[in-house]
């Protein structure tokens, strides 16, 4: 199967401090890959490298076939990104946001129109299509932000805590969207602090002190660490952390 991310001994040092320490892993096309770890474990640093925003200190990685040292612009064109903090423009309407991001990703007017209509229908946003984003509930915004992040049909989408603070019903609807995107072949790379969401991933990695200490399906990890829930797996690993953030 096609590999959309390959990382080999990927490392980032800030002076003496090794933020990301020689991580090696692959992610397959259409896979939902959970990227877990305690605060300060090195997740954000790793994600910034994978998105082409930060140069590694050593190691290799290819994203959608592009090299993370020399082809960062091509990487940016073939990925989508969404975080809890920055997603869409609050002072633009729903349709304006879609049009803006469609334009940024170089879609034609015709494409934007078609995708915009389909999206608004899928997310049941017709009644608020011309409403400013600032007056929508967080859960709706997050679902829209995700859909906008995959508007240009990227090979892979990076989601940084996309469901933080979202109500329990909408949080599950958000995962329905993730499954739909994965079924279309879009690879999902997601971080979360909800351990029930870790179960929804095809495979999970857990970072501890900059190293990838565990990698496998939820079932494999639970067996490996003789745990009943992913919560327990996380505790066992994160408690072993030496680094004080």
């Amino acid at each position, binding site marked *: 199967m096609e590999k959309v991310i390959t990382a080999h001994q990927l490392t980032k040092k800030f002076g003496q401090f090794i933020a990301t320490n020689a991580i090696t892993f692959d992610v397959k096309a259409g896979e939902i890959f959970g990227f877990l*770890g*305690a*605060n*300060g474990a090195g997740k954000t640093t790793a994600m910034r490298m994978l998105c082409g925003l930060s140069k590694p200190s050593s190691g290799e990685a290819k994203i959608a076939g592009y090299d993370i040292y020399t082809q960062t612009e091509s990487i940016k064109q073939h990925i989508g990104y969404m975080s*809890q903090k920055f997603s869409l423009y609050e002072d633009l309407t729903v349709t304006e946001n879609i049009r803006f991001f469609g334009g940024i990703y170089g879609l034609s007017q015709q494409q934007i129109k078609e995708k915009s209509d389909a999206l608004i229908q899928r997310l049941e946003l017709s009644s608020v299509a011309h409403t400013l984003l600032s*007056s929508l*509930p*967080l*859960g709706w915004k997050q679902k829209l932000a995700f859909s906008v992040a995959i508007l240009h049909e990227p090979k892979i989408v990076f989601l940084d*805590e996309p469901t*933080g*603070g*979202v*109500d*329990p*019903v*909408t949080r*599950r609807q958000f*995962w329905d969207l993730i*499954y739909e995107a994965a079924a279309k072949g879009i690879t999902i790379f997601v971080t979360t*602090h*909800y*351990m*029930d969401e*870790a*179960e*929804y991933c095809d495979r999970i990695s857990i970072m501890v002190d900059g190293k990838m200490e565990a990698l496998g399906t*939820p*079932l494999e990890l639970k067996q490996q660490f003789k745990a009943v*829930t*992913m*919560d327990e797996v*996380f*505790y066992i690993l*994160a*408690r072993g952390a030496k680094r*004080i*953030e």
Partner: protein
Amino acid sequence: MSAVVLDHIQKWYGKEKTIALKEVSLEVEEGELFGLIGPDGAGKSSIFRILTTLILPDGGKASVLGKDVVDAYKFIRESVGYMPGRFSLYQDLTVEENLHFFATVFGTTIEENYDLIKDIYVFLEPFKHRPAGKLSGGMKQKLALCCALIHQPKVLFLDEPTTGVDPVSRKEFWDMLKRLKSKNITVLVSTPYMDEAGMCDRVALIHQGKILAIDSPEGISKAYPFDLYEVKSDKISVTLNQLRKHISVKSCYSFGDVLHVSFEKGFTAINEVLDAITIDHLEVKKIEAGVEDSFMAYMTN
């Protein structure tokens, strides 16, 4: 006496009068660890801002330690500690300077109240000369808690102290709160994480500016209006979709690697429902509802 009282509090914002709080009433007893549980945008921060006298309610009455939040704002500001949702310490002051600053503002010293913050401050001590802006999320949170405690408040208001914090640090934080309880400080804390409700004496579930329920975490779970079953399946998403379409199923949600399926109380034909599912090897058992199950039932009914 109740430490905190909200009596039909209303709040709206802006020219369009967007409703933030709809007649919210609740009482927090002295020494209680009380949780406000709800997603972002539910109105939790508005409640904190009214109780800390930072904004005025548009209707209803509120009091802290028996004093009205509008009339007695000076008394309240001196008597409570507040940790806002957004990190709001001075980023360019060091850990020690921030703590010293807040102590001075309240006319006290770090030494005088060191006992209260000792357990938390030990984590920070190695970094006491570091600017607050250069601390990690978990450390900022601990410093903010120290600064909110340094004047020995009688009531502590914590607005989403654990949001964006990993499960291990979250647990550490709740252990700290439990220890504060033993020092007879009343704590009102908000969180979007349903699993944290279990750490509180009592909780209020809040959604879209309305209180859905107020009770002990056990009481909230017991009040779940349906019979709840856990279903395990190798093909979780197909099973979920088929169950949702079944006429007898009230709701079906994924919970990690299992499904929670609800039926009317006393429903007996579970086997017939399961027979209609085309997936083999389903494992089914009756379970007690949790706070998250109850929250979703309230939200959707």
